[in-house]
């Protein structure tokens, strides 16, 4: 379908999308060119407008917004001049889209085959015979079986990775010229992610497809993209070739962002970015980043910096590029001086087997957590790491074996345990959007925790709540707010403050940063590191992110299919992994430093 043409497949100039009925822009001054066969990584944190830009290439603007300036050309054709019918033909034909969550993008009531046929029928009037072959070809391209039994399946009968590859097959089915990927590997395991990225890359190269890869994950961009554009608060602040962006970033935001990303190849601390990005309508005058920038001068408060050429094809929007480039990379206090883990055991798990109904999920688990130690449980989804954490905290009751807290053996269910046992083990949930009662103020939530474990002295409750909030770097004002009035990072701080209010011996952190942006993740990790130093906390840290462990954990237990396949110190796991599975995980975890040849891949 692609017409032979010269010049870029995608040309966006001065794109501006504003809130309907106002002059407030969501994104502005967006300039993007993508050549055939090229992958452009569009990186930004939540609220930066990256998805808005991605959707604009499909001629789509979310409700509440409208294109109020600039030009988008796809294959030389200007989108604004197309009628609705032409736009429909364009979508899925010339420009196609790989969604973030294939689980919701595929129709659960239709068989896979039917859905693939549909997308072909929508764009080519030709016969069913040809379509059958195209469907088979499309599935083979993404390394899925193309036999009848597979085509007859429903989306729920496929794994997340298979669903995503079906979505990719659908996106590539009509041989598009441009493809927009909206974080297609978020929510996939590293092994699956590696395969999906490989597929996307190969298809783009072999069919000369121009791809816009929208993501918050810098490591993925380092693996996949040819060029990178970094977005902040609705503007592209830096763009250039991949190597330049990662090795010689020139914008202060890019530099801070890179320092917030944990990397499996380098044992270094992560550093969060203080403050947070401003929303449309609340952005400061001048450079939007200046309130959070170390290099801000008076001129930064005047007007937004113009684009300046920093090197070949490397564009930056900052007044003080020279000063930024000369400055050393920011360092965090974080983990620099880690306390040595104690020798007395806080928690010991012995021979634990767990079931969900009739299905066994954990097999003979043995883990110890010592005083002041951070033990990481790593594994992909379905490995049983969360089940183990829930057994420890008594939320999952169906287990056998022994879990000891200090000297006492714990009953299975939280309700059967003593108040002390419940106080000593505190659980922080993955999703701070779900773990706080939306109908209670932050103050009420924390006050209840205090009342539960230390009795209700109503008079000084406010004072004690303020202390708990101060510990996680929130002000006492937060106590009056409801959870929906806080950002994700603030909510997770509240959840941690609630757990710490009980003065626990062991903090169980279940993927506490996976719902957060990298800069926020880094800030939470910094916070946990600081709290460990100050309070002498023992941590059971559950994560799927190997890179994260390196910055926080002392000991690591790698889990696969309900078993601990490897157990050792962080150093040992990263430098000399013994289990095949660990090696596979390490190899599949994207790493900025490995890709750019700064470090060799572990093992």
């Amino acid at each position, binding site marked *: 379908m692609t017409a032979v043409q010269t010049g870029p497949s995608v040309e966006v100039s001065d794109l501006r999308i504003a*809130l309907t009925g106002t002059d407030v822009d969501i994104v502005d001054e967006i300039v993007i060119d993508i050549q055939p066969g090229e992958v452009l990584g569009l990186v930004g944190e939540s609220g930066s407008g990256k998805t808005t830009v991605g959707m604009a290439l499909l001629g789509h603007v979310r409700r509440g917004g409208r294109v109020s300036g600039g030009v988008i050309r796809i294959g030389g054709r200007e989108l604004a001049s197309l009628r609705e019918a032409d736009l429909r033909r364009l979508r899925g034909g010339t420009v196609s889209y790989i969604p973030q969550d294939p689980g919701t993008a595929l129709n659960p009531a239709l068989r896979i085959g039917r859905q693939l046929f549909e997308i072909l029928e929508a764009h080519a009037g030709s016969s069913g015979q040809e379509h059958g072959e195209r469907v088979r070809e499309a599935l083979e391209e993404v390394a899925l079986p193309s036999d009848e039994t597979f085509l007859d399946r429903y989306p729920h009968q496929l794994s997340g990775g298979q669903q995503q590859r079906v979505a990719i097959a659908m996106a590539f089915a009509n041989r598009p010229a441009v493809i927009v990927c909206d974080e297609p590997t978020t929510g996939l395991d590293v092994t699956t992610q590696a395969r999906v990225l490989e597929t996307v890359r190969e298809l783009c190269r072999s069919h000369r497809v121009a791809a816009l890869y929208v993501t918050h994950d810098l490591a993925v961009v380092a693996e996949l993209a040819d060029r990178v554009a970094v977005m902040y608060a609705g503007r592209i602040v830096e763009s250039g070739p991949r190597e330049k962006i990662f090795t010689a970033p020139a914008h202060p935001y890019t530099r801070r962002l890179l320092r917030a990303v944990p990397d499996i190849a380098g044992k270094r601390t992560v550093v969060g970015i203080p403050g947070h990005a401003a*929303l449309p309508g609340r952005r400061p005058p001048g450079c939007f980043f200046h309130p959070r920038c170390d290099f801000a001068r008076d001129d930064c408060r005047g007007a937004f910096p113009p684009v300046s050429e920093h090197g070949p094809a490397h564009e930056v929007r900052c007044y003080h590029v020279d000063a930024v480039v000369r400055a050393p990379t920011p360092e965090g206090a974080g983990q620099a001086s880690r306390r040595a883990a104690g020798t007395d055991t806080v928690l010991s798990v012995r021979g634990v087997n767990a079931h969900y109904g009739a299905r066994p999920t954990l097999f003979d688990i043995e883990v110890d957590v010592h005083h002041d130690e951070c033990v990481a449980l790593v594994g992909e989804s379905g490995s049983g790491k969360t089940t183990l954490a829930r057994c420890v905290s008594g939320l999952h009751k169906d287990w056998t074996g022994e879990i000891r807290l200090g000297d006492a053996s714990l009953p299975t269910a939280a309700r059967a345990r003593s108040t002390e046992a419940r106080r000593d083990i505190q659980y922080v949930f993955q999703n701070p959007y779900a773990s706080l009662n939306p109908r209670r103020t932050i103050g009420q939530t924390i006050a209840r925790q205090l009342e539960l474990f230390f009795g209700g002295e109503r008079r000084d409750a406010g004072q004690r709540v303020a202390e708990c909030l101060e510990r996680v770097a929130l002000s*006492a*004002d937060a*106590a009056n*707010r409801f959870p929906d009035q806080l*950002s994700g990072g603030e909510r997770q701080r509240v959840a941690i403050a609630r757990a710490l209010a009980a003065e626990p011996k062991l903090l169980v952190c279940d993927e506490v940063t996976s719902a957060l942006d990298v800069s926020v993740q880094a800030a939470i990790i910094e916070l946990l590191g600081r709290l460990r130093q100050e309070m002498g906390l023992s941590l059971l840290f559950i994560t799927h992110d190997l890179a994260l462990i390196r910055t926080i954990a002392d000991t690591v237990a790698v889990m696969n299919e309900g078993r601990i396949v490897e157990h050792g110190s962080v150093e040992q796991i990263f430098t000399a992994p013994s289990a095949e599975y660990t090696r596979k995980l390490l190899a599949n975890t994207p790493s900025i430093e490995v890709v750019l040849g700064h470090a060799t891949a572990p093992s």
Partner: protein
Amino acid sequence: MTETVDTAVDLGLEGALEGPLPEAAVLQRRPWLGILRNALRLTRTRIGLAIVAVIVAIAVFGPLVAPHSPTEFVGIPNSGSSSKAIFGADALGRDVWSRFLHGGLTVLWLSVAATALGVVVGVCIGLVAAYSRNWLDDVLMRGNDVILAFPQIVLVLLAVSALGPKLWLIVLMVGITHAPRVARVMRGAAQEVVERDFVKAAEAVGEKRGRIVFGEVLPNVTTPLLVELGLRMTYSIGLVAAISFLGFGLQPPTADWGLMINENRLSITVQPWAVLLPILAIGLLTVGTNLVTDGIARAAIGIDRGKS
């Protein structure tokens, strides 16, 4: 605005965090007041409240300002408006206006009592069923199904015809037949809530079951609860009026809106007011309660929060 922005709404809290800490955090204890205050800003709530207030005022203060006794004969049966009786006389020659002013209080308190009983019992059954997730859930919900199998009015009539037209029996039966309907809705709403992490967090720290159900889950199902409350109130008014229309409520010669409609329905063409006044009152009362409920429900889920 949330719709147009990628994810979390940031209110710039962290920016406000610098500077000295205030003495102590203020613990706001009643988020409810805020919801009601927001509801009062909506036109629909105000109109609904005005209507309800007028009808309730008529029912409560009517007997005090009525020109005649409800049983006093003031004119020729079914006669029209006169200086003694502004809405004329009813089928027995009593003052329509006075009987109307006297006849509302019973309908009103019977409906309120029956609704309160039904909603309280229904909420308890629904939330306990949703939270238990075991045999108790099945027992409670199958028990509900038995009651749901009969039309409400049939069960109420069955009881009053067997035990006699007693007011407490009407309240009890209307309430009991409301309960499974409320329970079903509340269980449905709570099923999603009991799976959320904050409920698990409460379990992990050992909150009592009752406190989890009524302290953690209940505040998150207030929206369907308020809608149910309004709906059940509406049905209660209709049911109670219907029962007295059928003669199982207050007995003649007491004045009562439902009874008035029955007594005067044959002469509607010559004396429409004796039927129209109670019908208008009952109708407006249901519309009013619905508008108030709707306003509160909207405020509770924050639909109109941005406008204020």
